[in-house]
Each structure stands twice: as structure tokens, then as C-alpha cells.
């Protein structure tokens, strides 16, 4: 009840926005292919539902695979970077290079190199999503208070024990901060990849819809993408609250960098 009450202003704001939107479109007679009314978006999306669902599932698949790849690769990478100054000095510049390349520019190249299948899309999603996760995980591993590390050393803990039993648990709130950013960015990455090369997915649906001026359907896809991002973000938050109850509420996250 209390949480419902806390969420009330947000819900009212969203509903209010849709009401104003709907009213404005009707009052000013805005044409549908320029800005469809929420009702028109809803009708168009529901009308094409089996098709929309298929595209949603395709995108969700890419998002989840890309997100999973980010997690699987970022965490060991972060541990490696945090474990030694030399490794960090060697790897970090490379990571920054991957971040300064616009992923949209990379997508067509990857599709030619790897074929028109799921793999290049997952790689693009991964490239968009993984960096903040690495950065915040490294920050967490290195933010361990020196006294805690000293305590470990006073207990004659080795480097592996120090990493696994002190640094890694300490980094959990940071890792989850990074996971939340990565979750949102995975959706961005998947759509970017679909724009460039795909025969299914919400990014593909938006492009084909707009090619035929079916603007309401494109808007519907955008709304679904937003919902997808919110749901994944909330799922990560929920997992954190269940598995690491001490962590939630003390979260820290790196600024998102898309």
C-alpha cells in the first residue's frame, strides 16, 4: 500500500501526459502520420498484435543475449582490471576505444563479417551495454576500504581469497548499479543493431512501419521498447533486493555512457 502510494504521483503524471497528448491531437487536428493520438497507437498495436508480439520476442531475445554476454564478460574483466595496475593500464585504453566508436557505424561492418544472423546484433548490444558495467564493477572492487583489505591480510588471506571474499562482496552494490545501466542500454543496443540489419524485431518494425507511414504502429513499438527497458531494470532491482538485501539502498552507479 505504502509503495503504491509512493508511486501515485508518477502514475498520475504518465496518465496526465497521455490525456494532454490525446486532447492536443484531437483539438489541433494533427494528422496521424505526423503524431498519432495514444488511442490510435493502441488500436494499431493491438490490431497487429500477433505480428507485434513476434517482433517483441525477437528484440527481447537479442536484448537478453546481449545483456547476458555483458555480464559474463564484464565481471571477469573487471576483476582482471582491478587485480593489477599493469593489466588495468593495458586494457582500459582499449575499452575506451571501443566506447568512442559509434556502434551504429560498427553494425554494418559486423553484419558483413559475421553474416545476417543473430550474432552481430548480440555483439552490438553487448558493445553498447558492457562498458558501464565494467567501469562500475572496477570502481566497486577498488573502493573496498583499505582497512578491510588489511583485515584480510592480517588474517593471512591470499589474493584470490581477498578478491572473492572481501572485494567482490563489497562491490555488489556497484555491480548492480552497473547492471541497471547495462539493462537499459541493452535495449538501445538491440534496436541500433536491428536498424542496420534484421528481418525481425521492434527496430525493424519501426523502420518498415515508417516506410509505409504507419506511424501509430511505430509509436506502439517505441512504447513496447520503453516498457521492456523498465521491466528489465525492475527485474534487476528485484533480484538485488532478494539476493543481496544489504546492498539495495546503498547503490552507486557509474554515469551511463551510450
Amino acid at each position: 500500500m505504502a509503495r503504491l502510494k509512493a508511486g501515485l504521483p508518477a502514475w498520475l503524471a504518465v496518465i496526465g501526459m497521455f490525456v494532454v497528448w490525446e486532447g492536443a491531437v484531437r483539438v489541433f487536428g494533427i494528422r496521424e502520420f505526423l503524431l498519432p493520438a495514444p488511442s490510435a497507437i493502441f488500436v494499431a498495436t493491438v490490431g497487429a498484435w500477433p505480428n507485434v508480439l513476434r517482433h517483441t520476442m525477437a528484440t527481447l531475445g537479442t536484448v537478453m543475449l546481449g545483456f547476458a554476454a555483458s555480464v559474463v564478460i564484464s565481471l571477469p574483466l573487471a576483476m582482471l582490471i582491478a587485480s593489477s595496475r599493469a593489466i588495468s593500464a593495458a586494457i582500459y585504453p582499449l575499452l575506451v576505444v571501443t566506447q568512442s566508436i559509434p556502434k551504429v557505424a560498427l553494425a554494418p561492418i559486423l553484419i558483413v563479417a559475421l553474416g545476417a544472423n543473430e550474432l552481430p546484433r548480440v555483439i552490438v548490444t553487448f558493445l553498447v551495454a558492457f562498458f558501464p558495467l565494467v567501469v562500475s564493477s572496477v570502481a566497486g572492487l577498488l573502493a573496498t576500504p583499505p582497512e578491510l583489505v588489511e583485515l584480510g591480510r592480517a588474517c593471512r588471506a591470499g589474493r584470490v581469497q581477498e578478491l572473492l571474499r572481501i572485494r567482490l562482496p563489497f562491490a555488489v552494490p556497484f555491480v548492480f548499479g552497473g547492471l541497471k545501466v547495462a539493462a537499459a542500454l541493452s535495449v538501445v543496443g538491440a534496436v541500433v543493431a536491428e536498424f542496420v540489419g534484421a528481418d525481425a524485431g521492434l527496430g525493424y518494425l519501426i523502420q518498415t512501419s515508417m516506410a509505409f507511414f504507419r506511424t501509430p504502429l511505430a509509436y506502439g513499438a517505441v512504447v513496447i521498447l520503453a516498457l521492456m527497458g523498465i521491466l528489465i531494470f525492475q527485474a534487476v532491482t528485484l533480484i538485488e533486493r532478494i539476493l543481496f538485501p544489504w546492498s539495495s539502498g546503498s547503490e552507486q552507479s557509474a554515469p551511463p555512457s551510450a
Partner: protein
Amino acid sequence: MIRLDGVGKTFRGRDGAEVEALRDVSLNVAEGEFVAIVGASGCGKSTLLRLVAGLVGVSAGGVSLDGQAVTAPRAETAMVFQAATLLPWADVLRNVTFPLRLMGRMERDTEDKARALLATAGLAGFEGRLPRELSGGMQQRVAICRALLQEPRLLLMDEPFGALDALTREEMSIELLRLWAARRMGVLFVTHSIPEAVLLADRVVVMSPRPGRIVDVVEVALPRPRSFDQEGSDEFQRCARRIRAHIFGERAARAA
């Protein structure tokens, strides 16, 4: 038990310049003895403690425990830091047992011992709480219990009450004496507070900064058990005055 012989420690700073933290420090701590180290900031007190703990190595001289050179952390010593440094993800009981679990020294009755220890420290009923749910004083009590559970022969304390408010600090000092009296391990206690040092210690080692050296060792002849009532006694005042004279005399000489 622990013996420091002409110990010197020089650090290399980030800019490559050498900083001499300690010079020619010789000190003994006997079994069951409570020794306090007092000195202004930068006199190398904490470094001294870390040398004894085996966390850093000496540049000159030697540290030995029962005649064996200390080159790495040993099971005979346990450390309490200024900050409680509890694991934020573990409850009080798991925090207290953490060092033993890390060292693979858990036994069947370790948890019972931990509970009993927490109870004597006034933490009964808090075993399942997370550190962030405790006050600063309670957190530091957990940290002390964590060190005591290791049953060290020498307890190293680096300004353990430095982050606490004055009232909690007095309360904790008395409590520490109570816990110590029941165990009689050696204690090496670093502090900024002259009254605290005099109240707690059998001997107070006075250090001067840059480089850290021992300038005096004051024997405190107050009867135990100690209490703050003794603060007005002549012996207490004599010791405090003598320590103060060293620390502030040094400063005055430096300023001139």
C-alpha cells in the same frame, strides 16, 4: 613476548623521495601487559603497529615474537582499526567469526564462543543485525569481539575509539579493561588521547614525530581495576603532565 630492536622504517613516497617514518625504536611488550603509544599525528604510531602485525616489513632492526622474527601476519596477533571495518553484507555473528572462517580455524564451538563474547560486550540479541543497523559504538564493539575471538596473545589497537564521541569513548575504555582483565593478553594501544592512555595502560610510550622516535616511557602506577575516578589522583596527574610535557614541549621547541 614481542620485542622491537632498533626498528626503523622508511617509505618511498610517490615522488620518489624517502620518508623516514620510524627511527631506532626499541620496545618490549610482556605477556599480559597493556602498553599505550601516544604521540602527535605523523609520529609513526600506526606504522609501528603494522610492523608488529607483520603487515609491513622493517627497513632496519627487527621485530620478534617469542624470539621468532615477524615477517608476515601471525595467528598470535589480532588487530582493531580506527574504523570498525565490518563487512557490510554480513550480520554481526558472521562478522565476528569472519577472520576464523578466512583462516580455516572454525571449530564446532566457535559460534557459541562468539555468542558468549558478544553477550559480554553487551551485544546479546544483535547477532543477526547488519552493521549499518548498529551505532558507531556498537560497531566498534563488534570489531573488538572479532579480534578477541581469535584469542590473540597480543591485541593491536590502532586508535580504536578515535571515531567515537567522548561519552561512548569513556564507556568503551572501561569495557575494554574489563574484557582485557578476563583474558590477560598483551595489548599495544595507539591513541591520541593522553587521559585514555594513562587510564588504560601499564606503560605509556611517548613518541615524537618526523622521524618517529620513542622519547619517554611512563610507568603508570595506578591500582587496577581502573576507573575514571582515578583521574583526580596525583599519580594520574603526574603521568599525564609528564606525557603532555614531552608532546607539547617538542612542539614548542619546533615552533621556536
